[in-house]
Structures are given as C-alpha cells and as structure tokens.
C-alpha cells in the first residue's frame, strides 16, 4: 500500500494486466516511444516490446476498428483515444460495431476491448479537449462505461475493464491525474456495475460520477458542518447502472441530488432521476436536483470554471433538496 497518483495507478493497472495476460496489447497515438501525451503509458514499450505497445498514426477510426477485430478474434486490446472529444471519429466503430457485434453474430464473439480516453475539464483547453460523453455511450446497448473517481478506483476498475468480456469505454478523469490516494501494490479488482457508498448519511443521497465524486465528498464535509448528513454514492460506471445501491440510498434519505460534469439533458443525471421517478417515487420527499455543467460547449481558459460544476453547486443543490424545491 502506498500513495499513488491517478496517473501512476493507471500505468500500474495496464502493466499488471499486460504481465498477466499475453493477449493484452496497447495501441494509440504516442503511447509507445514517448510513453503517452500525458505519460500514462511510460515504460511499457521497454517492458513489453513493439508488438504489444504501438504508436499509431492519427487514425482514430482505424485503430478502434483494429481493436474490435482483434478483440473479436481473441486478443484483449487497449486502444487509447488521446482525448475523449476525438472518440466521435471512431463513433461508428464503437457504437455500430463494438457494441453490436456480439449480438448481431448471435453470440459467436466477445469484444473484450477497452477504449481508454482522457475526459472532462481541467486542462482549460476548450471545447475539443474537455468533454465527458458517458451518456452518449451509455445509451448504446452493448457498451460499458467506466469513470473512476480516484487512483484506487482507477486501478481496480481498469484491471476489471481489461478482463471484462465486453467493450468498455474507460474515461480517465483529466483533472485527477495528479491526485494521490492509498493504492494497494497488489492485484485487486473492482467489479463493473457496482456502485460504492463513499459516505453514509441520512438526509440526502448524492449520486456522483467521475471527478464529481471528489467535489461531492468535499461538499458533504461542508454540509456536515451545518448538520446535513449526505450519503455519497460513487456510481463508478455509467453503464451498467447499479440501480439497487442508488435506489436503496434514496429510499433511506428520501432526497436525491445527482452530480456529473457533462451537461444535463439526456445525461447521467437524467437517467438516475428517471430511475428514481420510476422506482422510488413514493420515497421522494423533494424534487430531484441535477448538478451539471451548463448547456454550452466548454470555453477555453479559466472560463471553463464558470461552465463546469463544482463543490459550491452541490452544496446549493443540497440546500434546495432539503428545502424541498
């Protein structure tokens, strides 16, 4: 057990899985020689060689397609898309092929593909380097979507994603790269589709995902000082959704706030609010509140701070939820 950054936890997860399974390989732009645009894959080329760690041209569609084909035929590819915003270039391969291939071939193949990609704000690099697109992928049957909220989660979830038989969109939270927590040096897995109660509380449930989990935990501390005890659920995966854990918490606290970095319409919060309205309506004592980015593209520079949600927004949302609307 040692303090490890999110960045290094990711490297460690890939490293361990590559050591464990000779079918795991990694391709992407600048992942090999230079160890990744953000150093996430440093050292892997030297350790595993050119067949298993490969730089690619800028051809998002082809490299994801290659990954799908290789996955269908028995390997375990990890394809890096440098920024999630560029994943749209591979959208047909992901949404029409990775997601549907197992189904359309009647179960003849698995697609144990991981598409790793940096998502969210934090680099202040604007609309083409900052998006969080979990709900776009969560809507497509056949895909799983993972958003680790700290280094511990990152390692355990990435290892599970690599071993998973289904295609996983793995969203690495840009603004967490440097953040450290205790991370076991050994092998451990965190199952996909199981949310985690990060803090118990009785007054309100806050379901958060990705980077919003840390903001939420901080908000919860602040709220506790006012005497409001929030239960914080880290959803971990946007698909599958662990509705049991979420609904049980809502049934206990009778209030629900959902926090994510993507914009509200058709977002993760919509789905969670809908779940509650469908399956826990009679338990809700107050309107469900969504804490999200504003419904705009993400501007460059410090302007992003205004558009993206933060601790303050969560605190305010809880106040509204407690007041009842």
């Amino acid at each position, binding site marked *: 057990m040692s303090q490890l950054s999110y960045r290094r936890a990711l490297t460690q997860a890939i490293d361990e899985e590559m050591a464990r399974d000779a079918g795991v390989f990694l391709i992407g732009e600048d992942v090999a020689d230079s160890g990744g645009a953000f150093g996430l894959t440093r050292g892997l080329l030297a350790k595993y060689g050119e067949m298993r760690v490969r730089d690619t041209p800028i051809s998002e569609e082809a490299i994801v*397609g290659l990954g*799908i084909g290789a996955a269908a035929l028995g390997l375990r590819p990890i394809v890096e898309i440098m920024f999630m915003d560029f994943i749209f270039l591979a959208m047909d*391969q992901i949404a029409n092929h990775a997601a549907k291939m197992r189904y359309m071939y*009647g179960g003849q*193949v698995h697609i144990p593909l991981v598409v790793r990609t940096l998502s969210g704000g934090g680099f202040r690099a604007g609309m083409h380097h900052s998006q969080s697109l979990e709900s776009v992928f969560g809507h497509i049957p*056949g895909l799983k979507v993972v958003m680790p909220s700290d280094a511990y989660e990152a390692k355990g979830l990435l290892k599970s994603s690599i071993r998973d038989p289904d295609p996983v969109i793995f969203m690495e939270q840009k603004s967490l790269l440097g953040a450290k927590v205790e991370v076991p040096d050994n092998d451990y897995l965190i199952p996909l*589709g199981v949310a985690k109660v990060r803090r118990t509380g009785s007054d309100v449930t806050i379901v958060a995902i990705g980077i919003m989990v840390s903001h939420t935990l901080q908000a919860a501390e602040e709220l506790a000082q006012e005497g409001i005890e929030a239960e914080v659920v880290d959803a971990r995966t946007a698909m599958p959704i662990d509705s049991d854990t979420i609904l049980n918490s809502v049934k206990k606290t009778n209030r629900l706030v959902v926090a994510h970095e993507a914009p509200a319409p058709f977002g993760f919060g919509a789905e969670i609010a809908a779940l509650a309205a469908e399956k826990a309506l009679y338990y809700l004592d107050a309107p469900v509140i969504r804490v999200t980015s504003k419904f705009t593209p993400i501007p460059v520079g410090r302007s992003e701070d205004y558009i993206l949600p933060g601790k303050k927004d969560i605190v305010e949302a809880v106040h509204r939820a407690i007041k009842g609307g």
Partner: protein
Amino acid sequence: MSEIHTIDEQMLVAFYRNLYFARRFEETLADMFRRGEIDGWLHSGIGQELVGVILGVTLQAHDYIVPYHRSKATFLARGVPPRALIAEILGRQSGICGGVGGEAHAADVSHGIFGSTGVIGAALPLALGAAFVQLYRHTDGIAVCGFGDGATTQGSFHESMNLAALWNLPIVFICENNLYSEMTPLSKEMKETRIAKKAEAYGMPGIAVDGYDLDATYTVLQEAIARARENQGPSLIEVKTYRWHGHYEGDPEEYRDKNEVEAWRARDPLPLLRARVHDQGILDSQQLLDLEKNFEDLLSEAVAFAKASPYPTPENLLSNVYATNTSA
C-alpha cells in the same frame, strides 16, 4: 502480375462446383424474395460470384475473411452449411447468427468469416484486427477483406490502407468494382477511377484484374495471398466485375443501360468454366448433370429446413447484448 498460374484439375472442379452452387443459391434467394418469403432486403451477388469462390476454395482454414457484402459465394465456398446461411437470411433461430444478423450482418467465425456489417466501409478497420491477430500470434495466416468500389471513398478505406501498409499487416484488400454504388455510377464517386492505382498512396502494390477471367483473377489473388502470407505486406486488388441484378432485389434500375447488363451477362464465367471442365475431360456430361442435380436437392432441402425453422424467441432476442449478465 507475373505469368498466369495454372489451375489444376481438382481445383478447377472445386471452382466449378462452388460457382455453380453459388449461382443457384443466389437465384433461389432472388426467387424467394420475389415471392415475399424474405423480410427486409436482399442484395444479390449474382454475376460477382467468381472472386468469392476463388477465395473460399483457396484460402486456408486459419485465414480470416471479412466478406464483401454481396458475397454469399464466399460463405458457401468456405464450407458454411447452406441451410444455416439461408436460415440466417430468413431470420431463423437455426441461422449462423441465430437469425439475428440476417443477410447483411452474417458471420461464421468457425469458418473464419467475420466482420460483415451494414455500414459500407466499416469492414476495413475490422479486417485490420484480423490481420493483426495473425501477426500477433506469429501464424502464417492472413486476412482478406472484400468491399465494393463505393467503400473506397470512405475515410475508413484510407486509414486502413495506410495502417496496413505501415504495419506490414498480412492482409489482402479486394475491391469488387462493379461500376456502381447503389444507383451512382463510378464517375460520380471519384475522379480517379483506377481504384488499384490508389494503393500507391500507401506504398502498397495495387493490381486491377478482370473478374470474369478465372485464370487472371486466380493468379492475381494467389500472388497477393502469398505476399501476405510470407509477410511481404498487404496488397490491393481491384476486381472488375458486374452485378446483374439491381442494387437490391426490386431495384427499378433506371440508372443503367440494359445493354451494359447484357454485355456482362454474355461473358458469364459459369458456362465457360463448365465447358472447360467438360472439354478437358475432367467431368463428362452425365457427371456434370448429376452434380448439378445433387445441388438442386441440397438447395431444396436447405430452403425447406430454413423455412421450417422457428424464429428467435424473446429469450434469444434478449441474449448476447453483453457477454456478462448485465441488464440495463
């Protein structure tokens, strides 16, 4: 292309058998479609069977084919049971994909066939994966990827050709240029219509061949396959061919001249090949008739089997979304 490769007797018979059967298979499906026995669409490969036959017959069992979207001939020549292929096209449980994929999305991984898709151009990146797997596993297997002229204007064609050449992947790209993309003639798809020439942009050999000329096509394919197998790199083969039917069955075909269709039909490789097998004394008339009769029986049986097969059950239809038991 160097000199023409000789096709031995055994292979000639195999080509004939498979070409004949593929043709009758296509005709049978077209008839069924006309009679309203097929849901959705049917895209006939009639007139274009030869390439698929050569590939199906000559590739090795551990090679992968990502099939050209009209190429039922490939499936059959690779040994996919006709009954299971028809059942798939009819959307039946006993189909090769359990009746869920249908004509456009049929695959049979146990026969090395995979990567079919309803999205024109999307097959090429998938095929890279198949070639990469061969490389990764140090096999001498290769991947073959078929597609039409229309696919060559997709971005995926470019990215895939580039990556295949760059990584020296063991793959053969086969473009069946039938002069049309749906109703659009080649001249409205691209200014440079010599598709084989496009390979140069990737540092890859590109060869055009008359897809109605068995010997030439066989030779070109064998050389490209050998190149890939010996790790000398990928190739692009442009097979000049023609579809006799419309883009889909029922297509009014206002966009082309009947004479053009007739000119290609007149060059049909099937009777030529039959005559060759006969004239070379490999099979006599009676043997040919027996063989053809056998195939009719096989076909009737396959159709009957498929029609009698149940449709997928609700349980079938809810399976295979995920490999794990995930529900949304």
